[in-house]
């Protein structure tokens, strides 16, 4: 019974972890290229969630179709916020960009609240389930997991195989050197920021495919906190590291629950959170750049 439960929870953990990872890649990308900590990260996830809700409930559009739509909308939002706010603050003290991204987050939350209200919403997309014997996996969760992995692979290939990806990588390595070599660093910043926001808004769609309820303007807060933990786990400046960090986090969250449930007198959920942050602190102390970062 113990191994059945543990196995079931680990499967659920991998599926959830992939989505968590995807939801963190945008944060890591923006930090990696622009050195901007996007504390309004969760608000962009929320925008993706509301977009899915709107497309599904009002127009009957399948959440899978909502992924590219959300990505494009997110890139548009990223460009708008980059050129109106972030660009002017890149050279300013870190506190300025922290406050700016915080303000953008609050602005988005209040705007969505104004349009949709503060009610907790949800949608019911029934596409069947797979009974694995030790656990039941809804197809919507499986699609979310596959979607996350696909996006992570595509992002990896884009960075490795395209000129734009190489340009961004060179800006990350040495922005002055990249400028001397003729790379438009400002353009690289704008593209990276909009790509990061695009990924984050798209991850909002994937998260609602995993959990299609609890959609409200302030839902992003919980994911922002998780995203920071995952980003540090994987390496704050590494989008791929963030993806693997998400997998590790999902496994810790779900797997440790089964183990803690066997300790008499404790509430397992309280300990899973405790463990997540203990691991975070230990990694920060031993390897401050994250698991997948050499430097």
């Amino acid at each position, binding site marked *: *019974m113990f191994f059945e*439960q543990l196995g*079931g*929870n680990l499967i*659920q953990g991998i599926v*959830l972890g992939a989505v968590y990872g995807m939801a963190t890649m945008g944060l890591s990308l923006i930090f990696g290229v622009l050195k901007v900590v996007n504390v309004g990260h969760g608000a962009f996830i929320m925008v993706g969630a509301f977009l899915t809700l709107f497309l599904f409930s009002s127009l009957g559009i399948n959440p899978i179709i909502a992924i590219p739509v959300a990505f494009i909308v997110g890139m548009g939002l990223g460009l708008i916020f980059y050129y109106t706010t972030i660009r002017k603050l890149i050279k300013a003290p870190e506190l300025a960009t922290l406050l700016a991204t915080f303000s953008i987050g609050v602005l988005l939350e209040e705007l969505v609240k104004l349009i949709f209200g503060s*009610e*907790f*919403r*949800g*949608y*019911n997309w*029934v596409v069947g*389930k797979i*009974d694995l014997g030790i*656990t*039941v996996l*809804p197809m919507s*969760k499986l699609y979310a997991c596959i979607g996350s992995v696909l996006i992570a692979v595509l992002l990896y290939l884009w960075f490795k195989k395209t000129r734009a990806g190489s340009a961004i990588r060179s800006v990350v390595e040495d922005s002055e050197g990249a400028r001397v070599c003729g790379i438009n660093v400002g353009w690289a910043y704008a593209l990276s920021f909009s790509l990061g926001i695009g990924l984050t808004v798209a991850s909002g769609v994937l998260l609602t495919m995993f*959990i*299609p*309820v*609890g*959609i*409200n303007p302030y839902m992003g*807060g*919980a*994911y922002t906190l*998780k995203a920071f933990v995952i980003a540090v786990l994987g390496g704050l400046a590494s989008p791929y590291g963030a993806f693997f960090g998400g997998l590790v986090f999902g496994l810790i*969250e*779900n797997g440790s*629950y*089964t183990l803690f*449930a066997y300790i008499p007198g404790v*509430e*397992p*959920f*309280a300990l*899973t*959170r405790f463990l997540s942050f203990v691991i975070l602190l230990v990694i920060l102390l031993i390897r401050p750049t994250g698991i997948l970062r050499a430097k």
Partner: protein
Amino acid sequence: MKRSLVGIFVVFAFLLAGVSFAGAAPDKIVIGHPACLSGKYAKAGEQAVGGIKACVEWVNTTYGGVQVGDKKIPLKYKYYDCESKKEVVTSLIGRLVSVDKVNVIFAPYSSGLTLRGAPVAESRRILYMDHGGASNAIFRQGFRYIVQTIGPATRYHEGTLDMIHKIAPNDKRLALAYEDSEFAKMVMEGARDHAKKLGFEIVFERTYPKGVTDLTPLLSALKVSKPDLVLGGGHFEDGQLFNRQMADLNIDVNALSLIAAATLPAFYRALTTMAEGVMGPSHWEFGVKYSAEQAKATGLPWIGPSQDQFMALFKKFTKKDMLPDYHAAEAGAQVLAYVLGVQKAGSMDSTKVRQALGELKFMSFYGGWKVDESGMQVGHSMVDVQWQDGKRVIVWPEAAKTGKACYPMPTFEEKAKDVKAIPK
């Protein structure tokens, strides 16, 4: 000398006049209320103010005022917006007592705000009536001037358990899974005690933290315990998540009851068919069958408007086409309790009215009303609501129900195929 005599006469005349004013019955009884008209409890506050206005109007017009001695005195309702903030509640209670000279304070909505205002009312020795604070903790502080109309948290699930005990006496395996919050723990403390009295076996009990985003590990463990019925929840958002992830994991039980979520229309809007058959306790629902005839049958005195009259008055004062919910009903019923308390005491003195309320038993459109020594409500039964074919049906108690319970509820596989919870 002459001037002094005139002066003494004038002072004496004023004193006499003062004595006569003091001895006369007042021309109005004032209810003071720090109401939540803005902030996070604004919706509940709007309902409560509408309910109070409706019942004040009924008392002043249909009932003819409050009988004190040989005089009928009208009620006056004085309220200010407390912005759903604790610090504003305390200052407003001071103002209502000192400046507006109110006779009674109606507490604001929520346990937190009610508890915050209670020591202020207590220090002013003024009756403090609680219509929106369900936490039992309020009544464990030893306050002497507080009286409750809303049912206490520990009684939320009594009706659910009573109903299942009656309709399926062999279903005894009970699972409790709830938010790690003061309110939910209080609700489940009551459920656990009542379940034991009825012979239920608690096969699973776990909590989850506030703001949880994934309940899969907890629900997977719950599934293994094979319960017949599950009582759970804490707040609206985790209630939605709870139901959704039970569906995802195919955790089929005969009954699922969720606090603070399942009775709200938004719950069904979010979950649609997955919410079919799910139940939730509520203090009151529009459609309950409490009436003067029922009161007579149960040997309780009846006071107040009928449910339809209450709704008409409520709409008149809110100027909106919305149905009164339990926030409105319990606030309105509190006006009726106060009126009966004053009449029984024959006075507006808070100490006397408090004592009279302690001996009071009655029924209104809201249901039964009776408090224990601490002032906690013990006479009001919660109603249990079940989603049946997209509609909320009151399935318990017998005295209030509008339909039969669908038991067992359809499985999640059936619900995915659009099978509705229709009682056999």
